């Protein structure tokens, strides 16, 4: 329901200046004026003092007073109920994500480059969800808490790069941080409809919380974890950099994923495990995740006040300028001869 109010109602009293000025003009502003028919045709342009300028001045005073009282329309937005997910994307940014074992349009790309557009498309395709992002390597930190501002979120995902976090793979910490973000976003409500997408290419090597412990916690909170293993096991081309950080070549390097651990996490929490060793499999994994059950979430009601003072102040200043513009004589009260 919309409501109208003046934030500073006392300023409305200033509008009384207009009738006061009119009364003063009547009381003291009488001036001799002779009746001369056709005189307006003799008076050069610019010396006329039409009554309209006086009325414009009064109107400007009243409008300015009302503008100073800060009129507002209060828009009371009801709590919006929507169907959607509350989900956290936990994205691995360890250096192993540099492994170039993906292809797109015939070009070799690394794992992060393969994952990034899929994640962005995933975000775009879910306008009703609150989505947050946790990135992790040796440590985990929140890139974005759960939000419905998906444009902003896509930009943030576009900005992530390997090396932002010290190297390592803290899967347990990432899951724990994701759970914390979900709990905070839900405000203590139950976690129905909340889940975590864990995207990693390695085994847990660091962090304070073990993946199994984090999985137990997630299961306790009924938050399924969908684990996506990016890349494959075995040898994969890996870029070689010199001391200045310039890429100088590519060298095969062994990689190993711990699918059992990831599968255990998924099973413990009621999620699923996906092995995405190519682009199509990655896309398919996210498509399947997309089929998860939707959940209700609420947006807190808020009171939006729209100020209307500009609608009054602008015409008021225009009237004021016109009423005191050059050529406007001090208006006087006519007296019939």
């Amino acid at each position, binding site marked *: 329901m919309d409501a109208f109010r003046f934030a500073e109602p006392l300023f409305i009293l200033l509008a009384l200046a207009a009738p006061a000025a009119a009364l003063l003009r009547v009381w003291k502003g009488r001036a001799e004026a002779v009746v001369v028919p056709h005189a307006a045709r003799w008076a050069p342009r610019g*010396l006329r003092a039409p009554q309209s300028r006086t009325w414009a001045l009064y109107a400007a005073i009243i409008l300015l007073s009302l503008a100073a009282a800060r009129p507002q329309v209060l828009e009371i937005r009801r709590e919006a109920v929507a169907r959607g997910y509350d989900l956290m994307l936990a994205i691995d940014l360890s250096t192993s994500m540099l492994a170039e074992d993906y292809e797109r349009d015939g070009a070799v790309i690394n794992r992060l480059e393969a994952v990034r557009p899929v994640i962005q498309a995933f975000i775009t395709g879910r306008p009703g969800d609150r989505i947050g992002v946790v990135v992790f390597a040796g440590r985990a930190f929140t890139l974005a808490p759960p939000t419905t501002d998906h444009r902003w979120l896509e930009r943030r995902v576009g900005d992530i790069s390997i090396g932002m976090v010290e190297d390592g793979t803290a899967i347990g910490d990432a899951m724990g941080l994701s759970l914390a973000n979900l709990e905070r976003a839900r405000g203590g409500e139950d976690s129905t409809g909340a889940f975590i997408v864990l995207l990693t290419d390695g085994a847990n090597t660091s962090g304070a919380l073990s993946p199994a412990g984090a999985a137990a916690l997630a299961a306790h909170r009924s938050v399924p974890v969908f684990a996506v293993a990016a890349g494959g096991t075995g040898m994969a081309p890996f870029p070689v950099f010199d001391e200045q950080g310039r890429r100088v070549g590519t060298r095969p390097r062994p990689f190993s994923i711990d699918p059992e651990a990831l599968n255990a996490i998924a099973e413990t929490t009621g999620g699923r495990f996906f092995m995405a060793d190519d682009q199509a499999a990655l896309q398919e994994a996210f498509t399947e995740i997309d089929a998860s059950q939707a959940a209700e979430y609420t947006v807190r009601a808020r009171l939006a006040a729209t100020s209307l003072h500009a609608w009054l102040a602008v015409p008021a200043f225009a009237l004021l300028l016109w009423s005191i513009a050059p050529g406007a004589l001090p208006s006087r009260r006519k007296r019939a001869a």
Partner: protein
Amino acid sequence: MTGPRATLDPGARESLRRMRLQLRRARAAGTGQHQSIFRGRGVEFDEIARHGFGDDIRDVDWNVTARRGELHRKVFRADREARVIVVLADDPALRFGSGVRSRRDALLEAAALLLMAGAVQREQTGLIHIRGDGVEHVPPSRARGRILAAAASLSAAPAGPLDTPARLDTVFPLLMTQPLGSTVFWLADSPSEAPPRALGALRRRHHVTAVRVLDPWDEALPQALDAMAYDPVAGRLVRLQDGPEARAAHERWRERRERLWREWWPEVSDRMNLNVQSGAAAALADFLHLRSRAAKRAA
């Protein structure tokens, strides 16, 4: 109908006396037959005569001229009596006079004098007084008392509202119902708009004489003028200041006013100027007398 009794002030009495004197003189200067002094040219056909130098070309009878091979003209006889209707457009534009009297005062005097003259001459005399949105109509009558009462009432009539112009459009239908060939005295301010279409029909039906009053300010603005003025025509308060620009504007207005005056009343003999500073009686009597004599000469 009895009109309100009004006492004429000594000045008006004197004007009336002079007017009556002028009228008697005008009548005495005639052939001895009683003819109306109000008529410029009669409308009754009298005879056909040869066209001579100085005769009005409008009177040429082209049928007779064609038959006889030389110019002949129609001769009209002035009516023995005329139906006189005095129209006074009591407009706010009349309420100005740079001297003691206003244009309205002068036109009221002229209207009253014309009514009194009609009464004296026993003409059927009537009055149409337009003021603001209203019209006061005294139908033409020979009853002297009734006409004089109308004149007295008119002299005492208060001015209309300053912001309501006289509606001239109301008078045309009224005049068109009057008998053909009536003599109409049109007392008003100088026209400020182009002549309405109805004016042509009016002038074809009746003999209309326009009377206006000129003030010295109408001819030129006084020097060193600096005054606040209210223009009831425009409905605005203005500051009048002497200066080249104001004088040029005034001159443009004056030229337009004269052009419109001539457009409304093309015949010189149909328009009359009174001076606001001098009495109307002598000027009216002279105008009517001269025009009556000119009509006789033409006949």
